[in-house]
């Protein structure tokens, strides 16, 4: 350093003015368009996707909330303190109250066990009650609920009791007028035994005392329903947890419906992955275009330095340019993002029947922040490298592009990508998978490109041929070729991964609930009713499904020791209930077992599960340890669901003692199964070999698919078999199918957005080598090479790079799919054979076409003008 005192230097305002002028001129000259486009693309995809998912997620949650008739539910066998309702009201939440109990109802001719439900006036807080004026008649919404002295009943109650509309029904000491047929209540599936004891009778909560049916010791499920602002609900949930020391817990729909929760979670993961890909691709495009821009600005930087600009001032100028670009990109991208999401909503109007909540401002911040990170990680390094330009470059042009060859930009880029991935996924696993497959691709690539350069030279045919020219071009631009293959393969890999994942995910969902999924459960069937029911159904041309015997069993001991409670070490106190249990005659039920053990010793909690026995392995079950007993079965064996077995620490050969109908039954664990829980079909944690439980008096369960008019058959069926219980899950299945359809549409759209981002990357990558191609081909043409030769050689060059990228991309896509599907999406992975042809083929064709289209002007402009322009 010296004692030199600087002269007046340019102020920030001056530098910004210079920056803006350069920006404006470069924009007019077209140099910045791709860079801006890439940044706009990043903002658009992030804000668009975020806006869409933000609103869709809230909408889905809202719609799902209708399955609870509320946003949150508090339930218990005892009535939770009433002050809690007042507290909620004070906090601005809406509340309602429900009491459910099993009871006998009477008409003058008959009686029937029903699931009675008494509701307060505000019920339901979410969703709607649908009623009809005649049994199985046309439904309409009526949220008023039954008035005092009236009941609404499910259709099958009327034939069972021989009643008509307007007749009187007796419940306990109360008399009620049947005023409506209840077709649908939003939370029909939520209860256990109390809600499934029989057909529903809905009554006014204020009528309950007059019936005198609830006595000390009665089995009643009490539910408090809450709805309101999400944040307020969370605060209230915490408050409840504190008050009850964990005995009560506010649950939302994710706790209640595994199917919806899985669909939402997978959908979200996919959308997230999609936007991540879109942003990373946009990031690569930004890096490439920024690099090209800065390469073109080395001379600028050198000239500015001769004019007295310091390195920092040059940085300031280009920082100003980038910041202005960022600003434009954020504004334009946010507007486009808004339009994109509005467009999607317009497209999906038919599948999103509910009004969407207003979008929050978060997606826009997310877009802006993403653009900022992209800018810093991908665009800034090459532009800041400009400050290292030697001013001597004005005298000696051969002091070429040294600053950019350092690894700094790559380190920045990789770090930026990592930050983005981690930030978006909030998931170390996804991040590792993504980074791992990228690293894998890069590794394969290095080896491949080495081979490429060797085979390229070996395959050189006669001099002057297009092949020769193309291969020498690939070799000459070795660094660039490798970079291009890398970028192309990453892009194609992203697109392939997403496309395949999308197909698999949607296929999987469709397989989960196919069109012919049975939508009615029949329960409480006695063994001597089976034959009669089968013939009734056959007469009416309805397909029959297997009849599963069902009995409640509580696990007492494992190898002589008391059985651990399966959900003891689990936050999710409700555990998993099978569809069978939700539909079944008895909810998994914690009962204290054994005699009075005193205050100090807690009684063993025994969980009752609905169990079955069968010789055939039920569909969607897969034996993962041991062997299915098949035909040569013997009594005394049990098959356990794998995860449940892990929870209670049971392995093959263990001896389990169950209590079934007050008798103790011993069975040896013979095999373990995995079960597809989300298929809405009868599923069981324990399946016994035939002969083990047969003597213990089971009832039977079967399923039916009834559509449209066929539902009217239920009237006759129930008249003939009045003791059976029919549970309608058709509305639930439709609801889940509709949610899945929405999520699928969203996924299609994200895939399309990523495709656009990918195209942008390909274009930027081709453009990155445009200058050099111009120069080379102009020289070749002045030396007499024909247009056709050059065009053919360009085509071969790009096709070759495309082919290589396609092969690597296919490999990378299958690899990352393997991990994503097995680790993130809980799907089974299988190779996609057609991709091994389609991937490389698509790579070759797309890259060749794109490259050829972009560089066509290389041959169509006159060599003189090219040389002149480039030397200027």
């Amino acid at each position, binding site marked *: *350093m*010296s004692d*030199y005192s*600087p*002269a*007046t*230097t*340019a*102020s920030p305002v*001056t530098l910004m*003015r*210079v920056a803006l*002028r*350069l920006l404006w*001129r*470069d924009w*007019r*000259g077209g*140099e910045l368009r791709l860079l801006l486009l890439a940044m706009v693309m990043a903002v658009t995809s992030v804000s668009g996707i975020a806006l869409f998912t933000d609103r869709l997620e809230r909408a889905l949650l809202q719609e799902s909330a209708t399955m609870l008739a509320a946003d949150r539910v508090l339930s218990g066998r005892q009535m939770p303190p009433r002050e809690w309702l007042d507290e909620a009201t004070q906090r601005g939440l809406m509340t309602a109250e429900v009491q459910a109990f099993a009871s006998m109802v009477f008409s003058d001719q008959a009686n029937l066990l029903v699931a009675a439900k008494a509701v307060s006036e505000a019920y339901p807080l979410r969703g709607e009650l649908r009623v009809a004026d005649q049994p199985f008649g046309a439904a309409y919404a009526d949220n008023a609920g039954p008035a005092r002295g009236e009941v609404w009943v499910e259709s099958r109650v009327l034939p069972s009791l021989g009643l008509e509309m307007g007749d009187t029904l007796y419940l306990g000491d109360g008399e009620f007028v049947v005023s409506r047929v209840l077709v649908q209540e939003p939370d029909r599936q939520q209860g256990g035994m109390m809600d499934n004891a029989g057909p529903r009778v809905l009554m006014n909560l204020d009528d309950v005392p007059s019936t005198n049916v609830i006595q000390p010791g009665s089995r009643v499920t009490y539910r408090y329903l809450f709805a309101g602002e999400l944040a307020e609900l969370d605060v209230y949930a915490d408050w409840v947890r504190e008050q009850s020391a964990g005995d009560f817990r506010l649950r939302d729909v994710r706790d209640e419906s595994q199917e919806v929760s899985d669909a939402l979670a997978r959908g979200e993961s996919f959308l997230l992955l999609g936007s991540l890909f879109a942003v990373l691709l946009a990031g690569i495009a930004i890096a490439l275009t920024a690099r090209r821009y800065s390469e073109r600005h080395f*001379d*600028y930087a*050198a*000239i*500015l*330095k*001769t*004019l*007295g*600009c*310091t*390195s*920092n*001032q040059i940085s300031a100028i280009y920082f100003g340019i980038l910041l202005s670009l960022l600003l434009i990109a954020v504004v334009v991208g946010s507007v486009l993002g808004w339009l994109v999401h509005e467009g999607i909503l317009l497209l999906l109007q038919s599948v999103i029947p509910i009004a969407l909540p207003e979008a929050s401002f978060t997606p826009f911040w997310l877009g802006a922040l993403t653009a900022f990170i992209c800018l810093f990680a991908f665009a800034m390094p090459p532009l800041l490298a400009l400050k290292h330009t*030697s*001013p*001597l470059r*004005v*005298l*000696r*042009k051969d002091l070429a592009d040294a600053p950019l060859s350092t690894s700094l930009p790559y380190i920045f880029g990789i770090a930026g990508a990592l930050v983005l991935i981690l930030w978006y996924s909030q998931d170390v696993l996804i991040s590792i998978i993504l980074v791992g497959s990228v690293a894998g691709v890069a590794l394969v690539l290095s080896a491949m490109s080495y081979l490429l350069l060797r085979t390229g030279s070996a395959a050189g045919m006669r001099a002057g041929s297009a092949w020769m020219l193309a291969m020498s071009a690939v070799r000459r631009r070795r660094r660039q070729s490798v970079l291009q293959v890398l970028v192309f393969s990453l892009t194609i890999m992203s697109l392939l991964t997403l496309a395949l994942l999308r197909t698999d995910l949607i296929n999987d969902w469709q397989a989960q609930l196919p069109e012919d999924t049975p939508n009615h459960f029949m329960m409480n069937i006695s063994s001597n009713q089976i034959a009669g029911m089968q013939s009734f159904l056959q007469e009416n041309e309805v397909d029959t499904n297997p009849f599963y015997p069902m009995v409640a069993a509580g696990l007492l001991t494992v190898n002589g020791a008391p059985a651990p409670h399966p959900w003891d070490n689990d936050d999710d106190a409700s555990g998993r209930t099978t569809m069978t249990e939700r539909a079944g005659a008895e909810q998994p039920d914690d009962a204290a077992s054994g005699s009075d053990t005193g205050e100090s010793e807690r009684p063993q909690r025994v969980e009752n599960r609905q169990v079955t026995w069968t010789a055939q392995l039920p569909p969607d079950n897969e034996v993962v340890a041991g062997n299915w007993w098949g035909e040569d079965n013997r009594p005394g064996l049990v098959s356990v669901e794998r995860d449940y077995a892990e929870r209670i620490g049971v392995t093959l050969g263990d001896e389990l003692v169950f209590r079934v109908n007050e008798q103790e039954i011993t069975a040896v664990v013979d095999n373990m199964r995995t079960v597809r829980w989300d298929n809405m079909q009868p599923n069981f944690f324990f399946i016994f070999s035939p002969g083990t439980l047969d003597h213990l008096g089971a009832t039977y369960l079967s399923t039916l698919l009834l559509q449209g008019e066929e539902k009217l058959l239920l009237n006759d069926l129930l008249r003939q078999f009045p003791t059976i219980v029919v549970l309608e899950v058709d509305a639930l299945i439709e609801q889940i199918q509709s949610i899945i359809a929405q999520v699928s549409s969203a996924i299609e759209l994200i895939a399309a957005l990523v495709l656009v981002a990918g195209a942008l990357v390909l274009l930027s990558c081709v453009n990155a080598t445009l200058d050099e191609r111009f120069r080379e081909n102009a020289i070749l043409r002045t030396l007499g090479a024909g247009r056709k030769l050059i065009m053919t050689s360009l085509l071969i060059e790009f096709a070759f790079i495309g082919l290589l990228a396609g092969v690597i991309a296919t490999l990378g896509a299958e690899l990352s799919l393997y991990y994503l599907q097995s680790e993130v999406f809980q799907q089974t992975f299988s190779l996609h054979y057609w991709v091994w042809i389609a991937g490389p083929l698509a790579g070759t064709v797309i890259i060749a076409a794109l490259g050829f289209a972009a560089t066509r002007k290389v041959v169509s402009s006159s060599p003189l003008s090219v040389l002149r*322009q480039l*030397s*200027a």
Partner: protein
Amino acid sequence: MTAMIEARHLTKQVATSEGQLIILNDISLRIEAAEAVAIVGVSGSGKSTLLGLMAGLDSASAGDMFLDGQNLSTMDEEERAQLRGRSVGFVFQSFQLLPSLTALENVMLPIELKNDKDARRKAASLLQRVGLESRLQHYPNQLSGGEQQRVAIARAFASEAKILFADEPTGNLDAATGAKVIDLLFSLNAEFGTTLVLVTHDDRLAQRCGRLVRLVAGEITEDSAVETSGVENGTAGEASTAGDAAHV
């Protein structure tokens, strides 16, 4: 009196695969204010390197370089850049205009970098002075070589530099255009009283300077006064005006 430019035992060497290559060897040179010095030599004699060192575009391997009283050897690149902005103007063989800026904006640039609010007017006046008043809004690629070089000259004088370095200013121009550009350069140089260092391999052009320094293989072999500056090449000479130069 302090010299405007002074080189003391200046050496420049670069590492090559065959060892150290000496480009300039022990150069000592003193140039006074308002002098016009031609540095001549064949290609590879080291004259452009010497110009780069004198202008502070590059740093020497050994020796000291003083510019406008400041020792460049002790300055970092930032300080050298500031010194260039304050004291130095350039005219290059390849013009080195910023292609995305108009003629006017190119000339405004150094004035603006000095925080001068009057940049536009001053730049327009200079462009008028070099005969390009009708070309203010043209981009470099819309101008002929001669016109581009005149924009570059206007830009060089725009920063009110004390020293002007010209590196083969006519190298990319035909003889007639080159001569007119040189006339303009000398005329403005005389008008602004600038110290001029002109690197050329053209002896006839060198003759127009007051002093000639000849480099051979990195060493000064001749340093002599020239007596008949500006007359013998028979161009429009000092009489060159903006009007004459308008269509170079």
